[in-house]
């Protein structure tokens, strides 16, 4: 019967694996938007992270350097994004869209120019899957929690750290203040722009890490447009998760579950496609306040003009 699937550890392991490339950019978006900058460029930054992860990993023959390289490139494009949206005050949504389109083109172009048309080299090293002793021996939970890719564990740690950072540190408080009421923050002596840059930068690096997971964690190659919309789903996860790290994780797990379920249910009767629609429908409901209010940071998306 249907319920039989729920007892398969594989389903849950897949849920976590599928949730990770959503949770990371969702967490990234949380940072950015908490500081007041709407960032829909997560999709593009994921791609950039994915590509440059492979690029650096191949040329240094070291997956960890690939990861670092990807984070750096993610930071670079985030800085550019922040420059245009925070300092200059251009429309954050339009520019974000621009980054996405640009990233698709750039990564595919570089892929073909540097690696030719046969795909990235198969000798590219990839990030290891961990097998945590003790944890992975536990029946049922073992395979789920003990045998994931290293990036998954990074993600879980980052979520916990982010939660602590945002809600239990002074800097986190300042970041949130800037996203709620930049004018009040300014008169309290905070540097609004610097804090927003920080939010965008952290956001970009996290999205980039999400991309690296796709290319170096799950696989060891880069394919054109491999993020395939996950950046946008992460956006939905962030909103559904009420702009908090734990909420983003929860929402990502929900979405991941839907994806994993659809894979497991193939050919069973209930259409995988209908199930996959659920997370999106839920997001709309959340936005319209029917499934609990989902309110963004008050100054989200409004460039701060100190002369207003």
């Amino acid at each position, binding site marked *: 019967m249907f319920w039989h699937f729920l007892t398969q550890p594989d389903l849950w392991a897949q849920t976590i694996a599928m949730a990770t490339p959503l949770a990371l950019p969702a967490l990234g978006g949380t940072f950015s938007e908490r500081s007041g900058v709407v960032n829909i460029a997560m999709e593009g930054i994921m791609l950039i992270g994915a590509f440059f992860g492979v690029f650096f990993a191949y040329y240094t023959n070291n997956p960890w350097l690939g990861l670092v390289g990807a984070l750096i490139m993610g930071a670079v494009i985030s800085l550019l994004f922040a420059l245009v949206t925070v300092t200059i005050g251009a429309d954050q949504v339009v520019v974000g869209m621009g980054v996405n389109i640009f990233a698709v083109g750039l990564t595919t172009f570089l892929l073909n120019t540097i690696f030719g048309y046969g795909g990235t080299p198969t000798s590219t090293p990839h990030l290891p899957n961990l097998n945590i002793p003790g944890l992975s021996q536990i029946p049922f939970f073992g395979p789920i929690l003990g045998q994931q890719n290293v990036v998954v564990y990074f993600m879980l740690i980052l979520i916990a750290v982010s939660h602590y950072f945002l809600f239990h540190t002074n800097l986190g*408080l*300042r970041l949130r203040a800037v996203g709620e009421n930049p*004018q*009040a923050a300014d008169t309290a002596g905070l540097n609004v722009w610097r804090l927003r840059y920080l939010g965008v930068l952290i956001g970009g690096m996290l999205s980039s890490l999400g991309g690296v997971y796709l290319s170096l964690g799950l696989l060891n190659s880069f394919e054109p447009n491999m993020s395939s919309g996950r950046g946008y789903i992460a956006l939905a996860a962030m909103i559904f998760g009420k702009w908090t790290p734990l909420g983003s994780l929860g929402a990502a797990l929900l979405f991941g579950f839907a994806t994993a379920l659809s894979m497991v249910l193939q050919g069973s009767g209930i259409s995988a496609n209908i199930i996959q629609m659920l997370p999106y429908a839920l997001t709309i409901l959340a936005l319209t306040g029917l499934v609990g209010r989902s309110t963004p940071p008050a100054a989200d998306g409004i460039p701060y003009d100190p002369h207003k």
Partner: protein
Amino acid sequence: MGTCLEVKGITKAFPGVVANDQVSLDVRDGEIHAILGENGAGKSTLMKIIYGLYQPDAGRISLYGQELRFASPRQAIQAGIGMVHQHFMLIPALTVAENIVLGGEPGKVRYRRKENEEIVRELSRRYHLEIDPSAKVGDLTVGLQQRVEILKVFYRQAKLLILDEPTALLTPQEIEELIQVMRRLREQGVPIIFISHKLDEVKRVSDRVTVMRAGKTVATLETAKTTPQELANLMVGREVVLQVAKPPQVPGETVLEVKDLVVTAGRVDKVKGVSFEVKRGEIFGLAGIDGNGQFELVDAITGLLPTKGGQVKFLGQDLTHAPVDKRTLAGIAYIPQDRQQDGLVLDFEVAENFVLRDYFRPPFAKAGQLQAKAIAEHAAGLAEAFDVRPRRIHAQAKNLSGGNQQKIILAREVSRNPELLIAAQPTRGLDVGAIQFIHNKLLELRAAGKAVLLVSLELDEIMALADRIGVIHNGRLMAVIPGGQATREQLGLLMTGVQPGKEEEA
């Protein structure tokens, strides 16, 4: 008592106006010093200079004998200037403690929730400002939010407390509590500057009062030794009234009838049961200090704000809940206070703005299609008649100067031949020539037997034009006086809430 703050000869000019002209005052330790003045008196500019948002052109400011110049609000805060703005600088989503310590949080990395809340409780005890440090600011009443603002100032170890129109958004109960708070602070030796236009409060709380008018400090008096009449006199002064030839006229039937109107904005009733009438052939002037409900009143009459209670009747028709276009069609024309946001669509062409309220009527539209030629002709004619410059009717409205933008609105509203024209601050920011032009137009309408409701913050304007003057204060109509008989002092008193003969607020 020592002198805490000394302001000497502060002058600040903007293109076209001298906002502060040799302003001088001093504030002593442990006194509550009120600054009283009308709109445009220069209080706000002075305060902005004191807390570092503006730099003065001349003059100096000394704090406890030390001359200081602030390049930014941050510097002023650091020097000990504690400003509580009229519009709070608070973050509703954060807690009281978080708001207070923001930017000066103790500790390095960790946010010390318990310690911070204890700090706030300690401050709260010391200054007798009871508050729950863990409450979310957004959940607090405005009165309590104000306490948070004040505590913020003390957390930064302010030496001087400046309250800018603190009672503007408070309920009477909260005002009482604030006055108690101020008295207690005074007992502790905290100097307070209290900016207000409400005579009764100034009388009750302050030790000394400095009256400002037209950018100058007119007098500094001991509050106990002065009377409301004297203060009102100083506030409002004797100035030359704009000479306008106004032929006498007998008003006709009632065109607009407002009964017990109640209008809410936010959580406060801005209009608390106002009743009056406007008749044909007269200009009814509504005077009052900004923020006393007059603009909400007008917005409700024109349909831009919903009415909570009462009635609006126009030519016998009940329009209390009618949509905007119905009122326009019935014959109400409106020149709004915010010309750029409400009166125009700046991105549209001048011609399109000329028909902004009539675009769907013939001859401007036929069967849903705009008739470009008719619109252009109409626009060109109006631009000519009202001298709108430049005459390019296909230019975007945003490229015109403020005065010309206002002319577009005026031309549009006047030329639609309304039965009632409501004009809110119609001559704001305009040069003398334009002001004269608009005044003449209003008088023309009056002569033609139309009704005009003029809402203005300029007493001169109202006194020159109005046949009858209503004074609004704190959402209530204090009195309606015939225009010819009104004096500035009388109006000034009414505007600050003092009924002639009584000392307290009505």
